[in-house]
């Protein structure tokens, strides 16, 4: 079977020229369309029809103006229409362009092939036959393969060498970040640190509202009467210039509180005997510390959360997410930024610590979570995802089934295991923004906030677990700032409108309700049978936590007060806006 192969190699000059011309023209056309389409593509990718800067600016302006401006409405509609139209037009252009391009490519291909066909390169014996130098070529190929393999290997090894090993092992990761954050290369004294246990905490005022955080102070020799003006029973008084609403915490002879404004975050330590400043540390910037702090409301401020003292360290957290650990001599042990909280009032939940862990209720708008960090290094121990934002502080209560960490947020009251963050129980009884922390007495956890009713949750211990059920509710005068207090059979709630109500813990019956001239921001504290409630004017109302209202004393300091006082060893430490006070029976200034 013979086929005429020679016709494959016939030259047709005119046809060749024609097809070459078509190929050239279509090639040019392709190039032009490509350029146009790339330009169009860049535009369309960057473009969301309603996210045009002009339109967005107009919308923002529209949102700012209080009433409905018809002119602006018309402008928005016109601009919106235009940009949508532009979007659809460029979309159509892109589609048309793609089709044109495809068509042109087909024409280009066919004409190019025809050009090649009509001007064939006829076969002929090669000028220099490739059969020569076979062995040399083989050797060259071999060498080239070895060479390129080596280049590949070196490139791979170099790439590996210059790729930082991103993930250090779990524990190491935590430690190194702690060391980095501490800003020096000395390893923190990790091995030597032993942290206090519950019995130790009982002897101190380690956190917001005392040990466990539910407002119970030791009864022994708590001063009953004092007067700021005359100095009666005032051991010392130190002027402060430290913005921040957090409450003082006391451990041994050291009193701590923090302070912050837009630019500076500080931790202060005072001598409890003399009232002298022991040290004051300005927090350094940690990795992630924002240059400007997030917006906070004036009545929350940049240092709302109370510190926690957990010998040998103290911890402070601020509105920008900075968390720092100092030792009692003021040396920074570790610090980090937890991520800037997204919080429209400002982060307010106080810290609490238990044995070797530090707990942070980091309930923010974005990614709310409960963090447990190793107290010695700041390494994450565990983390629990939460649902809602909150400004309340955690409390720790002791149950026969073990200690529990109780958190309140917009909807739920949740109890977690301290060791691993297991959710022990949850009760849905809140609704809306919550700042008051839970109270606890006689198997009952009490939460209140002024959007919903206050609820008492009855706990029932089984062998290794606890069940919780909401029992009674109270929806009359409700607190929005000060935390309620459980004392004996009663719950005491002080409101920012100046009411104090006493409820029966078991039944929810209201025993009495008293009106005061000033509101309460500081949380009432129980010492023995007495309740100490500090109003915003700085007057301490002392009354019995009983079914009948009986005022025991009313003591004035003459300075505005927001922070909850600290009670320890027969003294009361009060942070007012301008002063730090120490009240002790029998002391004269």
């Amino acid at each position: 079977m013979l086929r005429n192969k020679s016709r494959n190699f016939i030259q047709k000059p005119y046809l060749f020229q024609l097809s070459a011309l078509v190929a050239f023209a279509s090639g040019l056309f392709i190039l032009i369309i490509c350029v146009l389409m790339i330009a169009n593509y860049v535009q369309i990718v960057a473009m969301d029809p309603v996210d045009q800067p002009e339109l967005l600016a107009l919308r923002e302006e529209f949102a700012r103006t209080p009433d409905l401006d018809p002119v602006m409405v018309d402008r928005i509609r016109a601009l919106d229409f235009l940009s949508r139209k532009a979007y659809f037009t460029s979309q159509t252009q892109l589609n048309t362009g793609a089709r044109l391009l495809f068509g042109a490519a087909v024409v280009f291909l066919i004409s190019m092939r025809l050009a090649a066909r009509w001007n064939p390169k006829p076969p002929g014996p090669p000028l220099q036959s490739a059969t020569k130098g076979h062995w040399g070529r083989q050797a060259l190929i071999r060498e080239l393969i070895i060479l390129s393999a080596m280049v590949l290997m070196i490139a791979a090894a170099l790439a590996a060498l210059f790729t930082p090993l991103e993930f250090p092992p779990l524990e190491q990761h935590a430690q190194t970040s702690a060391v980095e954050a501490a800003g020096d290369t000395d390893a923190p004294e990790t091995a030597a640190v032993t942290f206090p246990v519950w019995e130790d905490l009982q002897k101190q005022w380690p956190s917001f509202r005392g040990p466990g955080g539910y407002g119970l102070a030791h009864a022994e020799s708590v001063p009953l009467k004092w007067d700021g003006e005359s100095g009666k029973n005032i051991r010392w008084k130190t002027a402060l210039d430290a913005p921040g609403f957090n409450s003082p915490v006391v451990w041994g002879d050291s009193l701590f509180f923090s302070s912050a404004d837009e630019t500076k975050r500080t931790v202060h330590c005072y001598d409890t005997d003399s009232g002298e400043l022991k040290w004051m540390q300005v927090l350094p910037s940690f990795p992630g510390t924002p240059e400007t702090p997030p917006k906070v409301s004036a009545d929350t401020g940049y240092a709302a959360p109370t510190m926690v003292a957990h010998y040998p360290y103290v911890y402070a957290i601020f509105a920008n997410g900075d968390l720092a650990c100092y030792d009692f001599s003021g040396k920074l042990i570790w610090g980090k930024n937890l991520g800037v909280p997204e919080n429209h009032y400002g982060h307010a939940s106080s810290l609490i610590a238990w044995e070797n862990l530090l707990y942070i209720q980091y309930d923010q708008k974005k990614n709310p979570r409960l963090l447990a960090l190793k107290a010695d290094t700041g390494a994450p121990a565990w983390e629990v995802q939460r649902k809602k934002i909150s400004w309340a502080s955690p409390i720790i209560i002791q149950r026969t089934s073990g200690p529990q960490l109780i958190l309140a947020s917009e909807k739920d009251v949740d109890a977690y295991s301290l060791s691993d963050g297991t959710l022990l129980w949850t009760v849905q009884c809140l609704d809306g923004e919550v700042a008051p922390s839970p109270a606890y007495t006689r198997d009952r956890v009490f939460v209140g906030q002024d959007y919903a009713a206050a609820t008492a949750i009855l706990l029932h211990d089984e062998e290794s677990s606890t069940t919780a059920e909401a029992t009674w509710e109270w929806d009359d005068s409700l607190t929005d700032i000060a935390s309620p207090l459980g004392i004996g059979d009663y719950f005491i709630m002080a409101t920012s409108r100046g009411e104090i109500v006493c409820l029966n813990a078991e039944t929810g019956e209201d025993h009495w309700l008293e009106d005061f001239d000033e509101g309460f921001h500081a949380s009432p504290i129980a010492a023995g049978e007495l309740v100490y409630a500090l109003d915003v004017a700085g007057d301490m109302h002392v009354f019995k936590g009983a079914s009948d209202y009986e005022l025991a004393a009313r003591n004035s300091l003459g300075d505005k007060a927001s922070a909850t006082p600290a009670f320890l060893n027969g003294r009361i430490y009060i942070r007012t806006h301008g002063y730090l006070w120490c009240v002790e029976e029998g002391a004269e200034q």
Partner: protein
Amino acid sequence: MSCLNRRDFLRAAAATVGSGIALQAVQPGAEATVWQIDPALCVQCGRCATNCVINPSAVKCIHSYPICGYCDLCGAYLQPAAKNRDTGAESQLCPMSAIKRTHIEGVYYQYTIDEALCVGCGKCVKGCAMFGNGSLYLQVQRDLCVNCNDCAIARECPSGAMQRVPLSRSYLLKTDPPGEVPGT
């Protein structure tokens, strides 16, 4: 001749290995799979609109009417800070104007997606998930999807919501009974 024998041998070996692979790998019952979004996992990042190999995207918003609240103040339809319920551009959320609002009765409004306009950006889905019943959600439209071997959206999906599902159950509807939805 020996060469030919060696080739025959190697050929037989290759064929054996091939059929070994076949026996090992194939699942005779395996149904063809297609890509679909699990609405429970979707975070409405907006990548479905831009990452699909076809333009506009094969992902579109669908509406499960039985779980819709028929709200007047619809978080999927109106801008978050809309000043009025006007249906003009100053209040509408959808960048493509693909949602139609019709009054049904009393305070109830029906919202209908115009699939032809929808680009699958998920803005309304986010609004509905945040403020409403979550009756709007993204699904791959079967007739538009070209069913790539490696879905370009799945590759970029931040939450792993784009999954392979069997062809016979190729929509993951919120009105489906639970358990029927693979991956939940």
